[in-house]
């Protein structure tokens, strides 16, 4: 574990006791995430991606191994508000406006009024929702709601961003656009990002490292370092380097699955 390791998992295991017997959601997972890394988690449904992310966020308690975030336990990191978490569903409060929803964590964390207002308009700008501050969630499309929920996770000073399939429900074009913006944001803010996705191109386009996982029990089968430069226009996806990494990810998924994906 080097000095700039932000998240470090050692032999992490999590077994859910269910009515049909134990489910090994994670088994002996070890991974170090460095400061400023953009790590994507990819793998078939049920391989423990969400569970892994929830362990980092102290929303799930591992049954074995250890995990540290910013050098302290996941629980302490959560108490220090070390990360922003973007859930699969936007989960905006229907009784709060978009602005009010983004202000929610700021209120909870005790930012003053002026600072709240400044940050709300700043992050709304960032996700292209300027002018929607006073609208209620039901007045926005699903994609806009998801952008608002990302804005909410960006509004406070957490240098880790945990995202669980944030763009899963969005159409291709919006997704491309948000991927581009996310990269710019990551470049500008130097945040460490853990990103769960089902899409190989998305994983390859965004990440500095791609973690391939496989189910039953949930484990890491491959970690691929991306040689792509930090500067990534959208059409980098047509270059041979890009296609080669995508190919490796696909192979990894196939091997982990034991058959065709």
């Amino acid at each position, binding site marked *: 574990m080097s000095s700039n390791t932000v998240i470090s998992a050692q032999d992490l295991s999590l077994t859910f006791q269910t009515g049909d017997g134990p489910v090994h959601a994670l088994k002996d997972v070890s991974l170090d995430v460095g400061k400023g890394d953009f790590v994507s988690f990819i793998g078939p449904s049920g391989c423990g991606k969400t569970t892994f992310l929830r362990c980092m*966020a*102290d*929303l799930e308690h591992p049954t074995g191994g250890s995990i540290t975030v910013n050098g302290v336990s996941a629980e302490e990191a*959560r*108490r*220090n*508000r070390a*990360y*922003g*978490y973007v*859930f699969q*569903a936007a*989960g905006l*409060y*229907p*009784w*709060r*406006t978009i602005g009010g929803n983004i202000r*929610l*964590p700021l*209120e*909870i*964390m005790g930012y003053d009024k002026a600072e709240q207002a400044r940050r709300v308009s700043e992050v709304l700008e960032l996700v292209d929702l300027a002018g929607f501050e006073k609208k*209620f969630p*039901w007045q926005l499309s699903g994609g806009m709601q998801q952008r608002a929920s990302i804005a909410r996770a960006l509004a406070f000073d957490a240098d880790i961003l945990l995202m669980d399939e944030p763009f899963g429900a969005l159409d291709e074009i919006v997704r491309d656009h948000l991927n581009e913006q996310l990269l710019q944001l990551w470049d500008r803010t130097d945040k460490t990002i853990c990103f769960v996705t089902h899409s190989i191109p998305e994983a390859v386009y965004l990440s500095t490292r791609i973690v391939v996982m496989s189910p039953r029990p949930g484990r890491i089968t491959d970690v691929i370092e991306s040689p792509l430069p930090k500067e990534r226009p959208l059409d980098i996806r047509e270059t041979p380097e890009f296609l080669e990494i995508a190919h490796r990810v696909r192979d990894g998924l196939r091997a982990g699955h034991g058959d065709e994906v």
Partner: protein
Amino acid sequence: MRNLLPVLTIVTAILVIWYAAAVALNAQWVRDQATRAGHELSLPALVEATWSQDKPKLPAPHQVAVEIWQTTGAMVLAGRGFSKRSLFYHSWITFSSTALGFLLGTALGVALAIGIVYNRTMDMSVMPWVIASQTIPILAIAPMIIVVLNAVGISGLLPKAMISMYLSFFPVVVGMVKGLRSPATMQLDQMRTWNASPAQTFWKLRLPSSMPYLFTSLKIGMAASVVGAIVGELPTGAVAGLGARLLAGSYYGQTIQIWSALIMAATLAAVLVGLIGLVQRMTLRRMGMA
């Protein structure tokens, strides 16, 4: 006003049935009178008679309407709108214990619901008692409450309000427990990721989520409070209140008085429940949830 026609249709149907029932129920007495006096009754005369008795088994709607007018509007016109004979006065008495009981019941219900949601021990232990409390017939314990409270020197408004409270806290507990538990697991997880305190989670998530449930419960609780207030007036031998009017009416066979008190009570309940509906609509609209 789209739904005026169906409403009027139903009202007309009720009135027709009511008049017919008045004829059917009161006819026997009219016939007996006629036989005793020894003269024949034509059908129109019979019908006419059944609708104009002093102490009918079932008074006709217009008789009740006249009685209500004489004890409300007419008295107001005569400048005695709040005399002890006016239904406004009796409604006010019933309303005051309804309102106090409703407020107490709502406070108790919300407090119990918060306890049940936040405290495991209360969750396991309180709910069975709350349910058991409602299986006891209120008519059986109302006199006991009044007598016991009287014995310790509490009389007047409070004992009656206690009965309203007893009936109205139940729907509030049930509704609020459901409402406070209505946030999705994901929303609660989200609060955890922000390291929100339990108080913040309560004020910013659980309480707002529970509002639709609260208002539904309040409506049921309000109707129950009116019933409680009236029931509370029966065993006290109270001289004032719609319950007292009902009791006095039944002592002296004054069915018209009974029915006018009944209709007044129903109107009171409808107005109060309607008021809550109004507050509900305004609140939920302001919250963007309507």
